[in-house]
């Protein structure tokens, strides 16, 4: 850590635009290391934009803009870091599993490491095994490491994608509705995995399933129309939210 801060992420006054349309309005929040933070809110409230600002993916689309301060371990990721360094430190898992279809299970896991030429064959095999074990997939694919990643089931593919992200040893893992396309059993495995991930990583997860947010997160942030309406301990948010908007959203009155 470069500064005397207890926050993994310290975000203040974050604004984001798609061209002229403002998607985030002055979002400020602090996220502690090795915690799980759930981002909830109705469709179009800015959840995905918010996490895409954290790994500097938002700026990839021409016309998109970001302003405000986003400190990762005290360093401004927009001023003091290269975007590729940011993405190495901040992994991301998407709604739909997206294994590289032309790669084997093993190659999928170590694709990022290979790309940066970070390790030799033996080391890559060890990294693949360790990360497949970390996501609870090793026993299921041990004999099929050479098979295509696309041959796995949806739940296995999502865990493969998480293993791929973990292989880069990210400090923060962003998850954008990682279980929305999965069956209940696969969802349960991913949720268990999220809870174990926080031993090493700071997890920020978007979910439309408020019950899931309540199950797996330490902190919850509720967004509405691009604004952060309420942020606090998950138990407090789900038992006694301060904002009437949060109350109405989590009780299913709107959204």
């Amino acid at each position: 850590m470069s500064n005397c801060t207890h926050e993994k992420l310290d975000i203040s006054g974050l604004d984001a635009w798609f061209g002229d349309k403002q998607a985030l309005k002055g979002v400020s929040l602090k996220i502690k290391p090795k915690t799980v933070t759930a981002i909830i809110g109705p469709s179009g409230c800015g959840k995905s934009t918010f996490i895409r600002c954290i790994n500097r993916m938002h700026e990839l689309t021409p016309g998109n803009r970001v302003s405000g301060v986003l400190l990762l371990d005290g360093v401004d990721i927009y001023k003091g870091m290269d975007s590729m360094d940011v993405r190495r430190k901040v992994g991301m898992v998407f709604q739909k599993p997206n294994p590289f279809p032309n790669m084997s299970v093993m190659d999928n896991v170590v694709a990022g490491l290979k790309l940066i030429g970070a390790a030799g064959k033996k080391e890559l095999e060890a990294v693949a095994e360790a990360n497949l074990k970390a996501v609870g997939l090793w026993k299921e694919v041990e004999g099929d490491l050479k098979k295509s990643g696309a041959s796995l089931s949806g739940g296995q593919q999502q865990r493969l994608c998480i293993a791929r992200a973990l292989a880069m040893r990210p400090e923060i893992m962003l998850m954008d509705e990682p279980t929305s396309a999965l069956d209940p059993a696969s969802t349960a495995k991913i949720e268990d995995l999220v809870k174990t991930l926080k031993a090493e990583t700071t997890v920020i997860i978007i979910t439309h399933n408020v019950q899931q947010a309540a199950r797996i997160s330490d902190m919850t942030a509720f967004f509405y129309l691009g604004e952060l309406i309420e942020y606090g301990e998950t138990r407090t948010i789900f038992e006694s939210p301060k904002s009437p908007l949060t109350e109405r959203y989590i009780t299913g009155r709107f959204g």
Partner: protein
Amino acid sequence: MMANEPEYIGKINSEIRAMLKIVEGLGVVVQDALERKRKGTKGAAYAASVNIQHMEEEVTALCVGSLIRYQPFASDLRAITVALKVSYDMSRICRYLYNITEVLEEFDLDGCNVAGASELLKDALSMVSTSLTAYFDKNRSLASEIIERDHSIDERYRMILSAQRRSQSTSGDCILLNGLTARIIERLADHACYISSETTYLVTGRRVGYR
């Protein structure tokens, strides 16, 4: 902000309203029996108490079913946790009313002055009814008033005890009748306060630490 209440909470509360009706009905019977020092109400009180226990089980089943089916949060979640406790309190209140009829059955009531205990019961039963009104109406200030009234009940309970202790002419049966009845009523009023405390939590989301 409390938006429209879900149907399942309405069902749970209608069961609690039915419990209140039974408790209030039994309260009238027990009040009359105490004032008139009348025996013979124990059987009916026991039947009411058993009935209320079954209703409490029904409320529990409705609450658990709603938790599983709807996985509620915030005010809806609090409504369910509070309903579980309120139905238990109602069951305890009914049991205490039955206990008073047991005491009336046990002792010789002739010549015994029960005016103090009788007044105490009247107030305690009024607290029960009001606490339920506060609960159904989500009326925080009314709930707070009930909790305040408990001091008066406690004080008068102690006065009844000391009056019995000082009395030279009162029979042993009368001392026991007054002492036991007053103690039961004091506990009964506590449950009205518990209900009020739960109502405060239901409305504000914060516990006032009265239980």
